[in-house]
């Protein structure tokens, strides 16, 4: 049986992380526990657990200078109810499709990032939002773009002495209309792990031109991926006309860097093709 810590102060948590865990395998950081228990069914619970849920300053979702801050303990339900602007429509839609209401009430946005599943529903949205990960340790704090923080399947750039304290989402470009969406493909209505998913955000100026488009695809690579080629191609185009002829603008080459796999949910070839279709739909939606 492992050790268990539930400090109320961030400093105490960071202090614990700075030292060795009793079992020698490092501390397992615990928040909503919605990924912790499922991966241990029928097995003894032996981890040394650092439960961060009593640390008050990790809670909350709030406006911050230049953007918004999502605390490490903010749950999907809290995110959905936070009254965030249209920029977050895609992330909000993801919040309502992660597990059922029960998982949404317990699971955290940051936990979704740190669990680093290739099918993490939060990731395409956070990538499209250019979210930054706030990481703290006893020696200081650092900010890492979410795309650099998640390294691979179940791998993140968190040092053993570090704790993720929250996410920062920067404001959209000034003087633009922002539209955001999320397309999730699964084999059933609720409680479904995505076969593929797409997040798209468009910032459109007063003249109807695309100032910036940000598009990311999930469950089609070890880590969700932005589509830089497509984003570059869309910049400057008239939004409405592009939406009406989306096939002409979104090409398979834009998704070439994806590395989908075959699994029980779908074949690699299907994922690649479905992702293209989802990207087209998402782009058409945010530009229309």
């Amino acid at each position, binding site marked *: 049986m492992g050790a268990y810590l539930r400090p109320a102060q961030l400093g105490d948590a960071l202090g614990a992380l700075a030292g060795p865990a009793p079992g020698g395998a490092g501390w397992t950081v615990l928040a909503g526990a919605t990924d912790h228990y*499922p991966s241990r069914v029928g097995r003894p619970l032996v981890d040394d657990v650092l439960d961060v849920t009593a640390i008050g300053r990790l809670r909350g979702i709030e406006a911050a200078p230049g953007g918004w801050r999502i605390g490490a303990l903010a749950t999907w339900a809290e995110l959905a109810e936070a009254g965030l602007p249209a920029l977050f429509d895609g992330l909000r839609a993801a919040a309502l499709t992660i597990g059922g209401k029960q*998982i949404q009430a317990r699971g955290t946005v940051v936990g979704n990032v740190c669990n680093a599943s290739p099918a993490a529903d939060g990731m395409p949205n956070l990538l499209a939002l250019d979210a930054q990960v706030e990481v703290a340790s006893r020696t200081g704090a650092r900010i890492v773009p979410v795309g650099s923080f998640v390294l691979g399947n179940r791998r993140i750039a968190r040092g053993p002495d570090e704790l993720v304290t929250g996410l920062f989402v920067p404001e959209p470009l000034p003087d633009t209309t922002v539209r955001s969406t999320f397309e999730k493909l699964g084999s059933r209505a*609720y409680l479904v792990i995505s076969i593929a998913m797409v997040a798209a955000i468009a910032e459109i100026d007063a003249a109807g031109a695309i100032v910036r488009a940000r598009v990311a695809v999930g469950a089609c690579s070890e880590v969700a991926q932005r589509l830089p080629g497509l984003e570059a191609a869309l910049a400057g185009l008239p939004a409405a006309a592009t939406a009406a002829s989306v096939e002409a603008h979104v090409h398979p080459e834009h998704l070439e860097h994806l590395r989908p796999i075959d699994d029980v949910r779908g074949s690699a070839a299907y994922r690649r093709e479905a992702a293209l279709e989802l990207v087209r739909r998402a782009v058409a939606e945010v530009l229309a």
Partner: protein
Amino acid sequence: MTAEATPSRISRESSAAVELTVNGRGLRITGDPMRRLSDVLRDDLGLTGTKVGCEAGDCGACTIRMDGRQVESCLVPLAQTAGSTVTTIEGLAHGDAWGRDGAPRVTFDLQAAFLRHGAAQCGICTPGMLMAADALLRENPRADAQAIRDGIGGVLCRCTGYVKIVEAIAAARDERLAGAVSGSPAATLRVPAGAAVGARLPKVDGLARVLGTARYGADHRPDDILAVRAVRSPHARARFEIGDLAAFRTSHPGIVDVLTAGDVPGQNRYGIYPTGKDQPALADGHVRHRGEAVLALVGDEQTIAAIDDRDVPIEWHPEEPLRTIEQALAPGAPQLHEASPGNILIEGRLATGDIELALADGAVTAEVDVQTTHVEHAYIEPEAGVARRVGDRIELTVSTQTPYMDRDEVALILGLPPTSVRIIPTACGGGFGGKLDLGVHPLIAIAAWRTGRPCRAVWTRPESMAASPKRHPARIHATASADAEGRLKGFRFHGDFDTGAYASWGPTVANRVPVHAMGPYGWDAVLATTRAVYTDNPPAGAFRGFGVPQASIAHEALMDDLAAQLGQDPLELRLANAIRAGDRTPSGQRLAASAGLGACLEALRPHWQALRAGARAHNERTDTADGRGARQGVGIGAMWYGIGNTALANPSTIEMGVTRDGRVVLLCGAVDIGQGASTVLVQISSDALGVAAGDVDLVSGDTDRTADAGKSSASRQTFVSGNAARLAGEELRRQILALAEVEDGTIDVQPERAGRPARIEVTDAAGRVATIELAELADVPVTDAETSCVLAGRGTFDPDTTPLDRDGQGVPYQSYAFGAQIALVEVDPGLGTVKVRKIVAAHDVGRAINPTQVEGQIHGGIAQGLGMALMEAYVPGRTENLHDYLIPTAGDMPEIECILVEDPEPSGPYGAKGVGEPALIPTAPAILGGIRDAVGVRITELPATPDRVRAAILDLGR
């Protein structure tokens, strides 16, 4: 901050206490801070109304309300409940629910609505569902149907198809909005004598299910319990050696016993068929499927839970497994069982007419290849039970569908006479055929026998999925022909069924499938052959329909093919060729009556035409829009299904008595697995006796207390046990009338009240009252020694069948159910996703003893058929949980309209037949037909996942 400032770590063994409020009571709980709240509630606080289905947040059975939100208690560490307010199902029922302090019965209304609407079948998901519904209505008092589905989307139900659950929640919502307060659910149970058959009575065992007080397999946990856990093979095929167990036990002092194959006291081979006893309780040196038990650990719960299987000294030598039928049938393939050369367990055959001539003669001919995969029962209650040694007998309190077969199998394994084994069924949290095989029984029985202490096992979800039987994967090739007018000519069918590592119910492949392989139609000639093939896959057993759902994919695809080639309407082609009363079946049986397929299809016709026209109009609108939108289509499936065992005896015996203290008792060994057998049998027997259903006390199946009413399978309980219940009631009525010396009259059984002794009053047509004083009667023996009866009727019924000859000719069943369903589906052609919008289901049930329950069976059958059609695929080692293995959620269900056709079965109780399995069979064919109608692709490999549908659409364009 210094390292010294780090708080001292909390030892998990002796942690600080947590203070929280549970159901209004402040509690202080000490324990492992990482202990799951579900375990704390159930094991420490005795609140077993909270159920555990997966421990992974996949099923929602353990849903509670915590600080105002619905959460899964299996995912909450005890430490995180500090300072929180928790409400469980027990809090709904007994907290603010009962109008204390004049408060409205805010939650009780939900429970009453669930009962009234038949929203609880097996009841294992019901507490979680009620907690989710309660949280939903508190948050959104005006929730519409979509919001209700969203609100309960995190709770899986395998029985109801969610239809009546959504109805019940909507009804409770309306009551709350109207400010109404429900009455006691018990009060709704009353119908007058003689009016029970055909009434929408709530389940007689339903109140306990909605209150969370029904006790399932895992809810029995006596003191001084030993936990029994099997160590299972991680390999599909391997030899193994067990290492130094003495040293292992020394290093784990809490272990009381370790069981291996050599410790099986009796025969280490069991199997449900007399000819199929090939499965060991513990493997002896080699394993034939992943998940096979090789060793069992027995000890206190904490010790057993703390052992990692990988630390148990077993040396594995994996071998290349036979994963497919093709590999198992290949020349030179390893022989899995000595008695079955070529790995063929059994072959079946039905032949009538000249098949070659009939096929050659057809104006149109169609062929199809069908491939289906393993389907998991996915009952929300994993297998669980407790065994106790009582002197020289053993008693098992266990979740099961078939107590008497369990008794005989356990006796074999322990080397005891069957009468030395007692099986006490618990409430059964879903079966669907999967609890017809032994589950936890062998190992808890052996452990209890050896240790003398109560021994308990509760399977985890992955263990349940790895170790329990599956639906047979099938490879079918079939050909059909018709003449130019659309009269069916020849049907040739060959099906190979993967029966897995052990026989289980594999022999049904040989007998039930050929009888039904050609569908519910008349043909000039039929040749149907089947084989059950051993592989290293999970044993395939009984699952709602026993191979017939797989076969129906083939015959219905061929009917659609023939209709398309003939240019005929698919419904009309089926109607023109439907088997009717007076016809001979392909097995040569003349159906005298109750063959209502024609009536079902005629009832569906207007719906069919309207839905087809609507789909056409929708597609035209889509085409003229951007051409990328969803396309609609309508498909149809028809079925028939023989009730009860195939050409084998399957008697039921039921007793009905009057006790000395004036109660009417039904001693009934039929297990209610949620389908409603108990209610149906009370309805039938009370009408037969002539008393109100609400006055009948049910004594439910226990092999010491009730006679053998057979297994709850093969859709047989309403027909077979229903007849036994009717006979018992009629016999008791005859005895009472004879004692009263009247020819006919109304019977009033009166318990002792106000000092007046218990009596029966019989009033004849002229109003004369004859009184039978029960005290004056002698005891009469009934199976149950605990019930003292002064009058008792005993009914036994066994369907009238004959053995089948080598051409499958004979009378396999006394009665057949018929039905047809049509499905409106919407296909997203760009992604290949399929959404079923509407299903209209018409079923000939002979007589609907309880229409609410019949509808519930149809809804649930459709849900399972939809799952089989679109999403369910069990892959050993890969989908052993309920997030990789997908079953339909509340959001996947279509609108369903049920049409109950009542073409009375003369040999059925009050004309009734069965509906449990029939409801599932036509669903997948109807959905597949709808996909075909929508986008022109014929999917014959199941499930029709988005990638398969999309690939077929792409193939069409090539």
